[in-house]
């Protein structure tokens, strides 16, 4: 049996981890891989999960508790969920497109807890979303490794919400990696809602293999954790693909939030669009690393990337590293990053209309967030996310 200490935990020596030192946090906690905790499975969904505002018993859902599947509910036909093991490896997926320069996937595979396969069949348009809850409850410092392989077959449409949360006492490191394969004309809305408790560590990656005319909308809502690293990597293997990421990291206190993306345009005439925003309070820190690679063959690529940060204290800091690597000559690409405090002109305008300084600030912060949420399709989810962000800011 291999030991965790034989792996090099990502740290600042690795270029892609220049701004995020996972090793430092790891050494403070010395997490151990979790083994199945034998508890009696309760027939009812535990109250912690049913109380979560993102939980809806009438949708398709999967509940992980401390790394293992506690309950699964499939309401829709054309949706298949099963365990991933050595016998049913996902062959449709091209691992080569998602090589990593660190140990996180090796750790995940070596110390795997429950892993799943989710399949949405050809031509199926799910009217009910698929919610995946990752709930942790134990005090002992433990590492959790899950992997989910998701395939949307031709013309399939789905919405997947992942919700990461825990009780207050739990101390853990969630190391979760998802591989998504979007077949021709498929359409996925993917919400990643990271609400880990303040003592925990979150590292996750979403790796999306796209076939032609597929549409992927990713929304990252990252507010929890002591240290959080969320990665999204695309492999754009064909034309007419739309790949969108919207993300918000919101740090209340001494948290570290990292969103790292990699867009790999390999084929002509596809689009990627990223808009990542951060709000940082007290002595928190934020990182956005966004790399767009447009290969020589990927003519007429449209790639847009923008990162905006709002610093609400003098001790908060942000590292933004937008990168373009373009080898094709007929492309439209842009990137940018801004970091600043609340706009003085706007504050004064609102105050001159009778708003107290604090109220004016609140309204401007809400505006900053709203802009990102504006065109979210799932309106109910949007309201819940807005509510959650308000609770964190005030």
């Amino acid at each position, binding site marked *: 049996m291999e030991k965790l200490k034989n792996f090099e935990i990502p740290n600042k020596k690795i270029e892609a981890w220049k701004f995020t030192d996972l090793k430092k946090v790891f050494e403070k906690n010395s997490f151990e891989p979790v083994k199945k905790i034998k508890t009696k499975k309760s027939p009812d969904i535990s109250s912690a999960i049913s109380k979560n505002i993102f939980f809806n018993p009438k949708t398709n859902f999967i509940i992980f508790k401390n790394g293992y599947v506690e309950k699964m509910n499939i309401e829709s036909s054309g949706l298949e969920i099963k365990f991933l093991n050595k016998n049913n490896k996902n062959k449709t997926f091209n691992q080569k497109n998602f090589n990593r320069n660190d140990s996180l996937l090796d750790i995940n595979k070596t110390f795997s807890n429950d892993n799943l396969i989710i399949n949405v069949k050809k031509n199926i348009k799910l009217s009910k979303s698929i919610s995946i809850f990752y709930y942790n409850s134990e005090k002992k410092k433990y590492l959790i490794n899950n992997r989910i392989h998701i395939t949307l077959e031709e013309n399939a449409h789905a919405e997947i919400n992942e919700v990461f949360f825990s009780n207050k006492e739990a101390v853990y490191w969630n190391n979760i990696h998802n591989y998504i394969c979007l077949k021709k004309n498929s359409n996925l809305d993917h919400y990643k809602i990271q609400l880990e408790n303040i003592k925990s560590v979150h590292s996750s990656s979403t790796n999306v293999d796209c076939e032609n005319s597929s549409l992927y909308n990713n929304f990252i809502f990252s507010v929890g954790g002591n240290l959080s690293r969320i990665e999204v990597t695309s492999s754009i293997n064909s034309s007419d693909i739309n790949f969108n990421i919207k993300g918000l990291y919101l740090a209340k206190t001494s948290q570290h939030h990292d969103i790292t993306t990699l867009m790999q345009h390999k084929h002509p005439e596809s689009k990627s669009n990223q808009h990542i925003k951060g709000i940082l309070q007290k002595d928190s820190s934020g990182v956005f690393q966004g790399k767009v690679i447009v290969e020589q063959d990927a003519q007429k690529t449209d790639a847009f990337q923008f990162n905006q940060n709002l610093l609400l204290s003098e001790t908060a800091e942000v590292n933004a590293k937008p990168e373009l690597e373009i080898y094709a000559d007929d492309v439209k690409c842009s990137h940018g990053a801004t970091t600043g405090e609340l706009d003085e002109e706007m504050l004064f305008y609102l105050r001159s*209309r009778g708003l107290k300084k604090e*109220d004016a600030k609140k309204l401007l912060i809400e*505006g900053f967030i709203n802009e990102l949420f504006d065109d979210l399709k799932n309106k109910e989810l949007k309201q819940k996310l807005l509510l959650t962000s308000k609770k964190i800011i005030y």
Partner: protein
Amino acid sequence: MLTIKDLHVNVEDKKILQGLNLEILPGEVHAIMGPNGSGKSTLANILSGKEGYEIKKGKINFINKNLFDLEPEQRAGEGLFLAFQYPVEIPGVSGINFLRTTLNSVRKYKKQKELDGVNFLKILKEKAKSIKMDENLIKRSVNTGFSGGEKKRSEILQMSLLEPKLAILDETDSGLDIDALKIVANGVNNLKNSNRSFLIITHYQRLLNYIVPDKVHVLSKGKIVKSGNKNLALELEKKGYEGII
């Protein structure tokens, strides 16, 4: 209503206002005219409480209160309103939410009951209609992507909602076509009453054809150099500032 006595103001050691005196009584409409750089906008900004100005000397009294003791939001609560020359765009904040928050903030200050959504919308619709403001504009983010005229109209809408005691219009006429100008003027004229005063800051006489002032002042080098009735504006239009100053 408003008394300004011997006001001296610097911006980064540059003297902008140099002994300005002005008295506006309840119900009066005053116009301040003057060339670029005469200190018109500085005066408007000082009155609304904008930072970045050094008050060297002088007093401003607004309805028996020392204006310098009041924060910008308190000035709004007391009934002072500035229609900005360049209203800012606030992306992500919907017009309706903004307007309701501002009206309720002022009501709260005045110890009046805050309005609920239904009652607020009723009032808002009425006011918007009276200045021919498209309701879709109000639903959008505050001023965001508005044309110059739309921004000015949005200022007038805020003014008619807040019903201030003293409204200062800082070059509200600039960039407006004649139709928009009439609508803005109408907005002001509809609000006119014996207790409400206006201070209209403008380059041109044009707006004063529609909002008839009780008094016209010429501002030059930080001082009022000439005051008169509405005919002074006409004279200025004919002779230019050089002919008067």
